[in-house]
């Protein structure tokens, strides 16, 4: 066989594959979001509704908030949908996002062993964490720069405690997503801060239960941003903007509100009208 011909055929294979996927990308956008929205099943519920309304396919890459913002910063996603207000505002201020738009909220819950050895139960998350600290009970921290991790550090700060830099032996830094961290906490029978959505959808609870909930400090706001097309020219700004507009529209907000697990609402729409 003609060698040059043979080699050129081999070289062409990957390009043939990629051009096939380029065609498919015309009506699709990539959204970098958090494990809490994906693993709780919210996207599985609302994305088919958006697809029906717009014909646009949404491809969700579920990461921690820190990593999701990094993906946006590099221009590898069209839209970023996360929950860490301070980090999101910095993302926009640095010019990587066009505008931060509030979409919905849920809340964090402090999870712990059902016998609550640290006596952390109550309605005040800061008091709960203080009890965990004083009782030296095992506590699992995400430690992955996710939105939940940022919230946990905020609560420790409000309690004027810093187990992370004390390297306390009961404070276990797993560096993993919400689900894996919950698996770890279930195995260790440890306390952990979780978002309610992932907790409700989580199946391997063993003897864990909700210890603290309902504190207004536990409020967890989600924001959405279009990655700045001025920084990354390939961003699909029209389709991305359509997705953002839909999320905050009456239909989108109703879709979010209608998602329940076991009769419980997971996310509460609160886009500004």
């Amino acid at each position, binding site marked *: 066989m003609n060698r040059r011909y043979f080699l050129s055929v081999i070289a062409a294979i990957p390009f043939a594959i*990629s051009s096939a996927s380029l065609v498919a*990308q015309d009506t699709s956008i990539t959204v970098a979001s958090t494990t809490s929205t994906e693993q709780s099943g919210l996207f599985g519920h609302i994305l088919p509704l958006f697809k029906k309304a717009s014909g646009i396919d949404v*491809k969700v890459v579920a990461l921690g908030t820190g990593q999701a913002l990094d993906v946006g910063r590099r*221009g590898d996603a069209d839209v970023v949908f996360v929950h860490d207000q301070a980090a999101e505002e910095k993302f926009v201020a640095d010019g990587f996002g066009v505008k931060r738009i509030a979409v919905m909220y849920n809340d964090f819950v402090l999870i712990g062993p059902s016998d609550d050895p640290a006596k952390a139960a109550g309605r005040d998350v800061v008091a709960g964490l203080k009890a965990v600290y004083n009782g030296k009970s095992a506590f699992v921290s995400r430690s992955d720069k996710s939105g939940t991790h940022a919230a946990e550090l905020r609560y420790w700060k409000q309690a004027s405690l810093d187990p992370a830099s004390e390297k306390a032996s009961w404070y276990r830094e797993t560096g993993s997503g919400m689900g894996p961290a919950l698996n770890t906490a279930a195995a260790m029978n440890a306390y952990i801060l979780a978002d309610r959505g992932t907790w409700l959808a989580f199946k391997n609870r063993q003897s864990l239960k909700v210890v603290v909930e309902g504190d207004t400090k536990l409020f967890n706001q989600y924001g959405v941003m279009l990655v700045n097309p001025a920084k990354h020219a390939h961003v699909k700004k029209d389709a991305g903007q359509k997705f953002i507009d839909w999320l905050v529209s009456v239909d989108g907000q109703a879709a979010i509100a209608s998602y329940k697990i076991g009769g419980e609402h997971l996310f509460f729409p609160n886009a500004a009208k």
Partner: protein
Amino acid sequence: MIAEAASQALSLIVSFDANVMAVVALSLQVSGLATLIGAMIALPLAAWVAQTRSRVREPIVVLLNASMGLPPVIVGLVVYLLLSRTGPMGSLGWLFTPSGMTFAQVILITPIVAALARQVLEDADQEYGDLFRSLALSRWQSLCALLYETRFSLLVLLLAGFGRAIAEVGAVMMVGGNIAGHTRVMTTAIALETSKGELALALALGLILIAIVLAINVFAHFAKLYLRRRYA
């Protein structure tokens, strides 16, 4: 747990669950293609290294052998940075696509196939080299003859490469992003179900993955037996 997983695996297979089938198909597509492309790079490279008397031969042999131990997560990270829009290959738009995942797996398995094939071909060259030279075959002809003589051993190497590809999770997770219906493969689906605490479902998917790899090896084995009987 195992009994529950086994029955769940069985019902997923019997009911021909559309989601599971799509994930299985993508796993086979990405890893199969990666093995094919990897082999096309690795076998000529191995044949060349096995016969060459070039000064760079020994460093290449050591390098190939060492890169059999490339950690998938490092390959994933490097390919992620290469394919990222701000990276050198960003304009291809391959990040979070099956093409990018295939690319990462080619990098993972090419050294394995090349390193093992180099040894196989070198051993064969010791055996047949004098014969080929006495027949006055050209270098290109004797390379082809070597590849032909060792075809059954090389098939096992391809299975090893394919096994590595279809079983790894680190690279496809980073480069593919585990996007539902688009870049989700068996291993990333298993990781996802585990993180949702759906341990029985994760184990069920694991059983299906193992069954597929087993089936492919059974097929390859009988194909080999048939070809050997027919042509050897």
